[in-house]
């Protein structure tokens, strides 16, 4: 069972598990727009006997929905990936973030316990490098003390410890994967990496003039989500439950990510100025990257770098995708998308004029 199956990681994990012949049950929130785009390619009509993927409506803030789904589906493994996962949004919606990310995790653990499934269910908690926040040592390992700096991080800290506690108090097979940033072409458009590749691709096709970003100096350890969900699965196949840092061990700044993405698109960015005045110009002298202080976090997490030695030693896990390959894949997909958008725009242009004429005539 996967909570948060409609998200980036949920979709990659669902694909991994379907390929391993699992029956996958996913929990999704009801929303007014379709939110299953990332898993549509895995979905078969549930009436087909070959169907392996089933979706259920539920919500991390609704105890009874979680209880009901877990009871009905009797999973062997539960991957808790559902969360309000955007750090900046957590400053605006702290209570909702705490309710879904912190207490939501507890609700799943409690459901397992109350249903008497704690002896055989294996539980994975999606913890995060944001727990390290104001980092206490570099690089960060499983033993590095936490210093959360956002409502998101405080909520995830609660979820981390409650997972440890259920492992110790009830002998549950419960693990935390402390995942550093992991990206992909299906990363949400408001996360910085995707915002960059999508923005530059749209600029290249003339769909957008400028990309506005926050702190270009933030340093992150960026891996590929496809590799990282593999580590999640491996954690639950271990003889005993433990917590693991999952990271690439390489660090780059947001500015370096922009440069790498631009190079992939045969664009050159010339940086001028610094601080909030910093701007990136293309070869034609147009400003295509600028700073919008609105995107600064109230409390910045400057640097994150993970040491995944333990995962390498115990899970035999190493990232397969290099930074260059990650950027290249994201750029490729966003160029395709921008190209599609551009074609659609060109195609619609004359029609749009016609529609307008009809509208005014009526």
């Amino acid at each position, binding site marked *: 069972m996967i909570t948060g199956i409609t998200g980036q990681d949920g979709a990659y994990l669902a694909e991994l598990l379907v390929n391993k012949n699992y029956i996958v049950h996913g929990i999704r929130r009801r929303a007014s727009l379709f939110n299953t785009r990332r898993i549509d390619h895995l979905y078969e009509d549930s009436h087909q006997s070959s169907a392996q993927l089933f979706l259920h409506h539920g919500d991390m803030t609704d105890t009874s929905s979680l209880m009901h789904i877990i009871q009905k589906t009797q999973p062997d493994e539960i991957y808790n990936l559902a969360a309000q996962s955007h750090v900046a949004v957590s*400053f605006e919606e702290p209570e909702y973030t705490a309710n879904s990310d912190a207490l939501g995790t507890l609700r799943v653990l409690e459901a397992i316990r109350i249903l008497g499934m704690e002896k055989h269910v294996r539980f994975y908690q999606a913890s995060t490098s944001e727990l390290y926040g104001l980092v206490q040592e570099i690089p960060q390992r499983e033993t590095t003390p*936490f210093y959360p700096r*956002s409502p998101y991080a405080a*909520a995830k800290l609660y979820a981390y410890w409650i997972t440890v506690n259920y492992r110790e108090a009830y002998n549950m097979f419960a693990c935390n994967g402390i995942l550093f940033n992991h990206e992909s072409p299906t990363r949400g458009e408001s996360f910085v990496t995707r915002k960059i590749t999508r923005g530059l691709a749209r600029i290249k096709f003339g769909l957008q003039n400028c990309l506005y970003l926050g702190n270009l100096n933030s340093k992150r350890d960026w891996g590929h989500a496809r590799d990282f969900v593999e580590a999640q699965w491996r954690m639950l196949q271990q003889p005993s439950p433990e917590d693991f840092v999952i990271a690439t061990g390489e660090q780059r700044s947001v500015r370096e990510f922009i440069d790498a993405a631009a190079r992939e698109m045969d664009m050159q960015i010339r940086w001028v100025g610094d601080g909030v005045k910093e701007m990136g110009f293309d070869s034609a002298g147009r400003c295509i990257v600028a700073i919008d202080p609105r995107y600064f976090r109230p409390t910045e997490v400057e640097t994150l770098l993970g040491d995944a030695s333990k995962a390498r030693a115990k899970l035999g896990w190493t990232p397969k995708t290099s930074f260059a390959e990650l950027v290249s894949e994201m750029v490729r997909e966003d160029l395709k998308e921008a190209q599609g958008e551009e074609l659609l725009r060109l195609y619609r242009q004359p029609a749009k004029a016609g529609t307008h004429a009809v509208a005014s005539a009526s």
Partner: protein
Amino acid sequence: MPTALITGIAGQDGSYLAELLLHAGYRIIGTVRGPASASHERIDHLRGSIELTEANLLDQHSIEKMVEKYRPGEIYNFAASHPASSQSFRDPVLTGELNGIAVLRLLEAIRAIDPTIRFCQASSAQIFGNAHESPQNENTPFFPANPYSIAKLFAHWTTVSYRHTHGLFACSSILFNHESPRRPERFVTRKITHAVARIKTGLQKFLRLENLDARRDWGYAADYVRAMWLMLQAPVADDYVLGTGETHSVRDFCRIAFDHVGLDYRQYVTEDTESHQAEASVQLIGDAGKARTMLHWRHSLTFEELVRLMVDCDLASVAQQNTNRIDTLAASRAPT
């Protein structure tokens, strides 16, 4: 006149703080669980000098209405579900709500209504849990080991984060065990002193305790709330560990308590070896060096004095109950 809002005013700490602030000339608003008109033994003697209000800390609107209405200059948050960790295991979601998210709501209310309000969160030394170093100070990493302390840790970091992010004068006081005659009887210290008074007066024969060798850092509650008040008078907001820096065993506590009434604890106390909970590998001892230096905080009672004070109060209250019982008995037998 400065105004202070004390959540959980009917508890041990809330009641001591109310007395301290009344003495310092504050207007005091206190929240209680359930109807404000109900009796709350620890603050009944203050009725008339403090204002009680019912607030639902699970509801943002209820909190904001209260803050808006009273406009306190200082808020002290003692409201919490009880730290007896067995309850935190029984209803962990509610514990997370009351001890964790409620603090977030209070801070959000301060941010929305008046960011100059000073806030002091009562954190617990239990957030150190299975700490790897001893004694613990403000820089010691946290290893909480039950749902209560995990919720308290969430509240601690949320307090720190609102100070850093929003510039609030928000402080977290990390309190080691603090006792007093107002400690509820389910806590071992009060259980002992209450039993001593009853054994001395012939109402009870034995006292059954779990682990006589368990050691704790025990201080006097009235001193701890004074430190919290000092924290909010300081020029800058910060977090402080509050403890005595020394530990004593439950056995030490028993010896001093029984000695005080001329009895030998070994004749009355039995150890229940079966229900032993595993003791943490590292001792929890509070290093309050920072509070001593920065706040000039001092303890008013030694450990021995604290134990004797608690025994004396329990003796007095048992005697009072006896008098009442005799009165009732006499009244019931009196000819009508």
